[in-house]
């Protein structure tokens, strides 16, 4: 017979002096105090939602994305197609080009402007047409100049400006930023506006004429205000001082080396002269890519009867000042209407359609795969 005496007693080799309060004390208060706060955050027990990529969520998502993207793409594409755009290259690299002579005979020192005339015809009237997809913010036609192979985004070029000066700071006017070198001073006078960007400002003059079927040339009025961002015109760029007489303000400064006229002679309109000249502002907003276009003029609709630019023949008169031949650049003039999505660019529409289609297709493929593999794996157990 076995007597099994259960004793929960213990003997500790170290207890002979009573320093430990018995074995029970070991798990007692001493340990409790060492625990971290038992809060949900510290113990990482916050209420949580654990999303899992299941067929139930992923497949509908793909179909829905496909179904949303395709119509957007179609909309974009159609809108883009409805936009009328006309582009004419007037660089004059070809012998046949009317501007060939101007481009060849360019010299920085010549005082007589070289003028060339290009004629073209529009086979459609230019005006934003109200269709289902192309909401027309305005029926104006916009005139752009475009440059190619022009690295307005070059690092040193981009930095070569003094925003303080352009903001009307008089100290910077006299003492332009070092970033402007080597277009900082000329003949010991500070250059205003300083820097490479300002120095290389586009200075061709473009005029547009409508040629009636009977041969009469009518100049189309080009509006040169309202082509810059409001913030640029009113915040970023300001003429120095409060003196409305810009000639006096800029007296102590030199014009940029490549400019023909000083900055205070950019326009006769005091609201569009000096640093707040909109052509200048547009130029100063540097382009992201070496091929870019910048807004030049706006052609306003005259009345409801005639389109902004009717169908017919036109001629473009260029005062050819801007040399691009040396770096193999191109110059273009662009006429375009505008829709809700902006100018003509089928890329985004096509991209949307493509992505939408792929999504839809993937949805089908995934559905198939899920059908084939999903159930099998759901049931299999985890080896322990």
């Amino acid at each position: 017979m076995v007597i099994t005496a259960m004793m929960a007693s213990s003997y500790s080799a170290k207890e002979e002096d009573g320093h430990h309060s018995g074995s029970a004390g070991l798990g007692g208060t001493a340990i409790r105090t060492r625990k971290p706060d038992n809060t949900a955050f510290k113990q990482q027990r916050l209420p949580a939602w654990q999303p899992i990529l299941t067929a139930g969520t992923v497949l509908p998502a793909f179909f829905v994305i496909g179904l949303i993207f395709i119509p957007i793409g179609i909309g974009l594409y159609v809108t883009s197609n409805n936009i009328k755009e006309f582009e004419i290259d007037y660089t004059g690299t070809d012998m046949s080009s009317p501007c060939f002579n101007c481009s060849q005979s360019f010299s920085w020192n010549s005082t007589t402007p070289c003028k060339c005339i290009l004629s073209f015809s529009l086979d459609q009237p230019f005006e934003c047409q109200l269709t289902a997809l192309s909401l027309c913010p305005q029926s104006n036609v916009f005139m752009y100049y475009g440059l190619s192979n022009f690295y307005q985004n070059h690092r040193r070029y981009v930095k070569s400006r003094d925003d303080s000066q352009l903001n009307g700071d008089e100290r910077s006017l006299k003492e332009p930023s070092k970033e402007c070198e080597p277009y900082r001073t000329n003949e010991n006078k500070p250059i205003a506006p300083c820097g490479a960007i300002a120095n290389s400002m586009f200075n061709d003059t473009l005029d547009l004429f409508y040629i009636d079927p009977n041969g009469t040339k009518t100049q189309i009025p080009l509006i040169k205000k309202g082509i810059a961002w409001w913030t640029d015109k009113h915040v970023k760029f300001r003429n120095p001082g409060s003196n409305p007489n810009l000639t006096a303000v800029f007296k102590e400064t030199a014009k940029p080396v490549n400019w023909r006229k000083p900055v205070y002679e950019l326009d006769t309109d005091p609201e569009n002269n000096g640093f707040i000249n909109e052509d200048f502002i547009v130029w100063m907003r540097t382009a992201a890519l070496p091929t870019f276009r910048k807004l030049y003029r706006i052609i306003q609709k005259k009345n409801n009867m005639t389109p902004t630019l009717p169908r017919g023949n036109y001629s473009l008169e260029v005062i050819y000042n801007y040399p691009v031949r040396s770096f193999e650049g191109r110059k273009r003039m662009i006429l375009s209407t505008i829709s809700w999505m902006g100018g003509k660019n089928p890329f985004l529409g096509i991209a949307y359609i493509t992505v939408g289609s792929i999504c839809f297709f993937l949805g089908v493929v995934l559905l198939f795969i899920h059908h084939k593999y999903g159930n099998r794996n759901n049931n299999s157990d985890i080896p322990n």
Partner: protein
Amino acid sequence: MSARARAASQGSLEEPDDEVVPYSDDETDDELQSEDDLDRSEDQLPEPETRPPPAAEPGWSVRANDREYCNQPQFKKKSNAIKTYKYNFFTFLPLNLYEQFKRAANLYFLCLLILQIIPQISTLPWYTTLVPLVLVLGITAIKDLVDDLARHRMDKEINNRKCDVLQNGRFVETRWMHLQVGDVVRLKKNDFIPADILLLSSSNPNSLCYVETAELDGETNLKFKMGLKVTDERLQEENQLAQFNALVMCEEPNNRLDKFVGTMIWDAQSYALDLDNMLLRGCKIRNTDECHGLVIFAGNDTKIMRNGGKTRFKRTLIDKLMNYMVYTIFVLLVLICAGLAIGHTYWYESIGSKAWYLYDGLGYTSSYRGFLSFWGYIIILNTMVPISLYVSVEVIRLGQNTPAKARTTTLNEQLGQIEYIFSDKTGTLTQNIMAFKKCDPTSADGVVLDRGKNVDFSWNKYADKKFQFEDNFLISSIRSKKDPQILEFFKLLSLCHTVMVEQKEDELVYQAASPDEGALVTAARNFGFVFLSRTQDTITIMEMDHEETYEVLALLDFNSDRKRMSVILRFPDGKIRLYCKGADTVIYQRLDPNSRNKETTQEALDIFANETLRTLCLCYKDISQGEYEAWSQKHQEASVSMVNREEALDVVYEEIEQNLLLIGATAIEDKLQDGVPETIAKLAKADIKIWVLTGDKKETAENIGYSCQLLTDDMKIHYGEDVNVQLRNRQTQRRNDPQGRSKKLKEKFFTETSKNALIITGGWLNEILYEKKKKRRRLRLKKLRKRHTNSTSAPDSSQPVDDWEKEKRQEDFVDMACECSAVICCRVTPKQKANVVSLVKRYKKAVTLSIGDGANDVNMIKTADIGVGISGQEGMQAVMSSDYAFAQFRYLERLLLVHGRWSYIRMCKFLRYFFYKNFAFTLVHFWFSFFNGFSSQDVNDKLSLRFPKLYLPGQQGTLFNYKNFFISLFHGIFTSLMIFFIPYGAFLQTMGQDGEAPSDYQSFAVVAASSLIITVNLQISLNTSYWTFVNCFAVLGSIAIYFGIMFDIHSAGIHVIFPTTFTFTGAASNALRQPYLWLTIILTVGICLLPVICIQFLYQTIWPSVGDKVQRNRKKYELEDDEEERKKKKPAFQRGGRSRRSAYAFSHSRGYADLIASGRSIRQRPRVRPELRESIREVPQAENI
């Protein structure tokens, strides 16, 4: 007679002794042998281990009470102050900065900073690098400072401990740090020993002094140290001590805890000193009111400090990987920049130089420009090499909580990668508490178990108040004295032992050589058989209500071969009886054939063993006077024999311990820490291998191995001999194979399918790993090679031919050990523990974790990748050097399996994401370069400075998974391509809805940056598998903050104030007004994310990971868990399912029999009998250390 000698006498000359903790392999001078010596010893290989160490050339001398002498410069003696801190007030800044700049990343950014200051190169303002760099350095410095302050505090605490030092003839309380070599100190009970001290005298008889060496070797039983006879007699009083002027010559400071050789010269007499006279730093004085000693080694010269190993900077695997990645990225960066620079050169040659508008008046050649742009790109693309990575990693680590005290925050994620755990036994796996759990006094009567009510012990004035006890029947049968068997049972327990007793304010304090024995005697005391006192040849107990004194005729002490101990007593009525307790296997062989109760006891033993209790069988034998006298004669002869006395005694003991009558069995529980078996099982399931490294004896270690289910019955256990043979075979095989050097043997060591376990002792470990006596071996090797060229004799297989072979051997051993599911190393020194850890680290390239609680684990904790300290009973040394500290072993489970895994996954996901993000971000610049003449224009310089910080909150608390860096690289490339080219396609040749061209670079930047921010934040959302409101807030908040800040810095107001800094006026509002750009952003984000979703979904569907499955079936598993929990409630008892382990409860060392027999420990000072005095020095006590 030492155990080593005993082993030698048993003929196992070349085999290491399992009983002895081997020397550590530190080379000391006395191990050097002359060449002549070698020549002689070579012929008698294998080397007998009994060779006495040649007398050390004393290189260290100490004169008592003479600081001047001891401060002589040639000794280079240091003060007792210890220093573990790294910096002081003045050195902090330079040293810390120096250390920080040793990090490649910091240095890299310093270089960047210098580059940015050069105006020709500078592409970004210099402060864009300075600010983050200063931030990083600052945060790290503050962290280091806090850590170091803690070390300062700890050092100060230790250095300012007090002890009494003899100064100018008086004992003065002094701080530890002012202690010097040569000082005479006085230590009191429970004091820590401040230095390595030569024991001079103590308040105990014969200058005996008990010490607890737990800090040194983890053993908690008390050891005794003894002063020299001469100092004991002449140095008890203060004035005597003040006159003390002996010169001590001894070995140089070393790290051998097991050895001390020295001579004391006093009054022209010289006395030999050994370890028995030394009190080592780190030990604690116990049961000794007062003792005096002479400081021999102080401070960093002490043996424990020498054993400490170096603190090294621990790096996690991910840290290392991260560094490699950073190097990879750096190389990539250089390549990219070189490519771009070449591109720039080419572009400048063909276009740039002709573009009049770009004229800058500098006149550099295009190749020089290319060179400059190379550096410019290095700066602009620096976001590829992530400086914020280090900060972010630190932030994440700080942000995580562990259930216990994390003493370092840099290793969290490594917790998820542990492959090997090295654990100390005592105090880590076990509580170091022995509990008398059950007993089985076989009784003729029937038994009624009356459980559930605690028994009242008030009848017994000696009962320990802490006792609880649940069997009233047992007590009542004792009290009624009905059952002689039960009475005999407890009487035996109270008589047959070597425990010593101390009366202290009406309380009895037992002092046992092993805690098991203490537990048994204490149990007997509670049952009414109180061991009261003993003299050299009597023992007095309280038998229920009356005192009884027995004459002790002989004490047949325990040793590990005998596995039993006996005592022969003459009862007051003249009857002679032998009481014996021992392991069941040993006892059953010696039982009288007519002994009753064999079967019932056997059953009980089975039950006990099943509960992994350590069992002992108790038995007795009556001896007639004549029989005793005859035996006594033999005993006398044996005990005076000069050769093989130990062996002779064993034979004599054997003779009398025959025909025993069984009384019953006891069961003692070496209490495991809570939850140890469960934890081990869980960890094993996670494929984490656990090695137990302990200073304990083989039997104890094996037992614990079983009780914590590290070892199971279906395992085949291999011991040192086995292993050695296996390894030797492998080595021979390699030697015989001519190509063996080059190819690696792949076949396994154990071909059987059963599970294997390895139990190996320190001695064998040294033997196997050729670690023993390095220098001598080297000399011998030289010799051997010399001889090898002369003769063609085969090299001795027990010795390696060269270092390569040694390395191979070690590798083999590690391979072999890793094939086993459990490895237990016992009798190992702290140094060996560390060696084993580093072996595994070296040959397995695995992540290791060491866990321990004592000072003997410090080295191992420092060596392992992660050190965990248990803040248990053995002091705080281990905790101080650990990376994590907690109270119990079982917390390891949660630390590793929960928090470790989380941290790991999190860190990995984070890293992958971080690289992805960085690539996506940086490579946008790269693509842009192709369109801006390779002139390194930043897409958005102000924003870019801002937004790595922007989504830092989004990373916190989200999960990341590191698969590999290239996936993130390609993912990053893909994303960056999309982010650049979709807007590019959309922007080319178009204009906004108000006619203004949106293709200016500011609008472009806004679109690209917005796409990037939205993409990366949604990417995080995709990676987040655990959404809390914090995550939601972080992700949405990041996007919101981004737009907020963007509109802010693009606002008109800020431009007016800082026109040159904030040039993006109106860009955001103008750009984001346009639906076209929004559509572009949506498309870009969509294209970036859809493939990721698709691939993730495909992976989960076709190749689901375990984690995916768990997630998917979470609910189901939770339910199952609950059920299991319910089922677990009733444990199944498998009768006889487990083989019995006859653990002899004297687990640590032999008892105090010698001590008792010599009478030295008895309170009443024995009258000095010359013959007894003589014998004192002859009895070596070395084994207790």
